[in-house]
């Protein structure tokens, strides 16, 4: 059975041009005719190969103009504890965080199953919408026990990274984290802010971060649009 079909091969050759830097974000992809001549394949094959890249968000099409290189996904470091805010800020994108909710609440049954702290423990709930180049790309929920960070309400998390505040103001050193990634159908409490409907899928990254004493510092749930974040690790 042929797994590596010609259109996949063409899509990879174009991907090579993009990943190696021959084509940069915003550059126009060579025309169908040029590509079919270069790789000695039919134009239909090229079209199919480019469609694969468009579906994956690697390129986008401008009507009557052709295909262009899309911005690469934001890299999330998956083998170190890094704040999302700083990861997005370090790219060449326009980035904004909007606070949707910042309140105190008590552990309820759902949070208890995730955080395993006693029912009634007071928490901060921070709900942030991440906006990249004007487009909302993820909704981040962070739950932090109040006893870890009393007075957290005085900080402005539209301008600051939560992790930076934890380290700087509360001397919390983030030591260990467990993060789980699943794909689910979008839910009501965030999908419309992301310009999605409940028929669309999102990537849910949920996890717990512990400090150097093994104390739970944060439980988070990030719902992001498919294709915007890439998880990267480099083992030593």
């Amino acid at each position: 059975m042929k797994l590596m079909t010609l259109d996949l091969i063409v899509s990879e050759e174009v991907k090579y041009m993009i990943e190696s830097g021959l084509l940069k974000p915003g550059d126009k992809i060579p025309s169908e005719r040029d590509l079919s001549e270069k790789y000695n394949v039919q134009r239909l094959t090229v079209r199919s190969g480019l469609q694969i890249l468009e579906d994956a968000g690697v390129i986008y099409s401008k009507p009557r103009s052709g295909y262009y290189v899309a911005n690469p996904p934001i890299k999330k470091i998956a083998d170190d504890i890094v704040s999302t805010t700083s990861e997005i800020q370090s790219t060449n994108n326009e980035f904004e965080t909007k606070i949707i909710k910042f309140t105190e609440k008590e552990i309820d049954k759902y949070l208890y199953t995730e955080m395993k702290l006693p029912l009634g423990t007071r928490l901060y709930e921070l709900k942030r919408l991440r906006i990249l180049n004007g487009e909302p790309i993820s909704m981040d929920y962070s739950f932090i026990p109040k006893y870890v960070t009393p007075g957290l309400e005085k900080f402005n998390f539209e301008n600051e990274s939560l992790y930076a505040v934890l380290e700087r103001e509360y001397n919390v050193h983030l030591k260990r984290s467990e993060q789980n990634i699943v794909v689910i159908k979008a839910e009501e409490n965030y999908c419309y802010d992301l310009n999605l409907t409940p028929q669309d899928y999102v990537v849910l990254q949920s996890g717990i971060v512990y400090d150097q004493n093994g104390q739970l510092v944060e439980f988070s749930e990030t719902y992001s649009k498919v294709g915007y974040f890439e998880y990267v690790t480099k083992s030593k």
Partner: protein
Amino acid sequence: MEYKIPLYIQLKQLILERIADGEYLPGEKIPSEREMAATYKINRMTVKNAVNSLVEDGILYKEKNVGVFVCKKKANRLYTFRNKEKEGEVESSFSAKIQLSGQSIESEVLEKGMVNNRKYVEYKLGLDEGESAYALHRLRKVNRETISLEYCYVPAKFFPDIDDHNFEKASLYAYMEKQNHLPIVFEQKMIVEKARRPFMKPMGLKEDDYVYALEFIGKDAQGNIVEYTQSYLKCDYSIYQFLIESK
């Protein structure tokens, strides 16, 4: 106020880790409540709470007068794909990790052979223009269910007789180790994507299904790039997990 993690929660974590590591296998009996109380020097009530909690969570089950066992996985359970970094743990690709957790991985080879002049493969393997790579395209199955589709490429120059081997039976890494080019250091990227047409049939996926698209590069002890693999794992019924220790 000082807050310590309650002992029964710590014990729960410990048991869960042992299960994840494959020390306690599905269907196996775990140490008795009395044994655990003695080993960890904690109250039997504490052990009971931890165990009961895991029974409630569906991880353990009790057989009267016999003991406590790890639940055997159900047919449509969750697969956990993991990229794990723990002190002292030997680094390996995720497929080796699934194996470590006590389940067996089977492979079905769909295509194999030499490839030339594929710029993307040359680029990923650090090959010179025109240098050959050996391609191995496989389905990976756990308990006879297809969980991933892999396109694996290795530099032909390090493995001159690779085509003589049958990697449905033999382990690719065992062969690579014999040639002194076992990958021991990995760089990995993972992104969620819509399943592409060529994957759908072999993986039993539908139009709107998603996959975890993984790409990893493996280097051997000398720093040579010896492996470039694209792996597509079903998102359905599975979790991709990262366990992270900060540097």
